[in-house]
């Protein structure tokens, strides 16, 4: 029982059925296990179903074929054990930055004073001090993204589903956020599934990198990428660079296939 990985995805398929137009097979026979406290990165060409897979684990979309279980229980609905950072942020536009970040804590019934302190510390952490009372429409893309990350970190889910969480950030902020995420992950036990298009980021952050095939998405390969994350010079070591190159090749093959698929 305890040997069971925390998240088990078993032969999952997903078909979108838009009201108009023909059905789209987004995921085909995906199987994947993620252990407790593991950091898994998910790579794959655009449109291969990465977001869809996160939505299924999150319990947002119905699982029609196959099963997904978390802590040995089948996923049937969303829950605060699985926090998600959406690709398009999904901040509540009518709430201020502060109120957005506080939302999960309110739902948990955290007392006001404790909540305010926690919200403030997260605002500091993601560098949004001075924008507490701004509405999302008044923020830049990168700021929205940081607010969304803070909102999800706030209620401290044991599983973090992150959909290109650093995609809208400049290189500087991206580095800061990466090391912040790592230190959170090292301090508090968390399982992370992290979607990204940045191979170097994936190899640096993750314990394992799963590469998905072009649509319909499948898991093509899983690569172990356990490097010492506290080593500042890791990016320059030959092992690291080779690993990044090898994974790049895998991703590129699939991206070319995805391109070809679009033409035909």
């Amino acid at each position, binding site marked *: 029982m305890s040997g069971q990985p925390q998240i088990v995805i078993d032969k999952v398929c997903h078909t979108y059925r838009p009201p108009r137009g023909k059905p789209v097979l987004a995921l085909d026979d995906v199987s994947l296990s993620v252990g407790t406290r593991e950091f898994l990165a998910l790579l794959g060409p655009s449109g291969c179903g990465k977001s869809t897979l996160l939505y299924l684990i999150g319990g947002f979309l119905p699982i029609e074929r196959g099963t997904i279980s978390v802590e040995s229980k089948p996923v049937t609905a969303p829950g605060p054990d699985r926090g998600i950072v*959406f690709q398009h942020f999904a901040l509540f536009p009518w709430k201020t930055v502060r109120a957005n970040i506080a939302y999960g804590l309110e739902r948990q019934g955290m007392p006001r004073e404790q909540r305010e302190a926690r919200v403030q510390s997260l605002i500091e952490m993601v560098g949004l001090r001075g924008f507490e009372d701004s509405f999302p429409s008044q923020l830049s893309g990168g700021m929205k993204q940081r607010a969304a990350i803070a909102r999800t970190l706030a209620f401290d889910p044991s599983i973090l589903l992150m959909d290109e969480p650093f995609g809208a950030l400049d290189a500087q902020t991206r580095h800061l956020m990466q090391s912040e995420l790592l230190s959170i992950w090292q301090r508090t036990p968390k399982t992370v599934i992290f979607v990204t298009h940045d191979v170097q980021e994936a190899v640096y952050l993750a314990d394992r990198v799963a590469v998905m095939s072009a649509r319909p998405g499948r898991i093509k390969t899983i690569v172990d990428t356990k490097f010492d994350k506290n080593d500042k010079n890791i990016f320059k070591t030959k092992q690291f660079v080779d690993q990044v190159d090898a994974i790049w090749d895998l991703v590129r093959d699939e991206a070319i296939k995805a391109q070809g698929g679009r033409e035909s």
Partner: protein
Amino acid sequence: MTSAALALPERTRLQAVSMSLFRYLPLVLLAIGWELTARFVFASSSALPSLSQVAAAWIELVKDGDLITHGASSLYRAGVGLLLAVLIGAALGIFMAWWRPVNIALAPLVEMFYPMPKSALIPVTVIWLGFGDGSKILLIFLGCMLPVTIGAFNGARGTDRALVWSARSMGAGRLRMLWDVVLPSAIPEMLNGIRTALALTFILLVTSELIVARQGFGYLIGYLGNNGSYDAMFAVVLTVAFLGFAADRIYQRLMQRILRWRE
């Protein structure tokens, strides 16, 4: 240099004042035209009293308390009717958008009832609830509910699914999610529906009071008209027109404030 910098806001304020004067210039012209027509064209009849006579009658009406008592009773009916329409209409629209059975049960009713001229219900509401407040409140409620319902319905239908998922994954149950996500998503369109309802409120109020009532603005207009006190009658008509205008203005301010989270 300093004086120029100081003078600048002064100048823009002056500009603002002259702008708003300019904006209401047509009204001023209308008033002057009225006064002249009344004095020189209708001089021998009382069908169009001059504006100054109307003003005098208005002061008279306020002094003896008629305008206040009738006005209070009208505003009470309008307020309660509209409030009920907003509360029940919004709830209905949101549940229709979110729960299929509610939609299936109510959509045909809404579609049938919406285009119907609500003033046709005046006799019906009187038969049910008599000559007093109840029938007016019911009429305003029925007449104003559907624009709110339809606004809330369309707004709620447009709710971004990622926001729903966000709330659910942070621990909101289904009802909580309706309140926290679907309702705020519906608000912009719903507020437009309420603005329509606000205009309808005044129309239905005065119409129904004119036809069957013992109190209210509409009753007062009818009563004064029948007695030939045209100056006082015009005073009441203008009061209602002004109240309608002011209500819409205040409502627009309120709307801007509620929607300040949008760009």
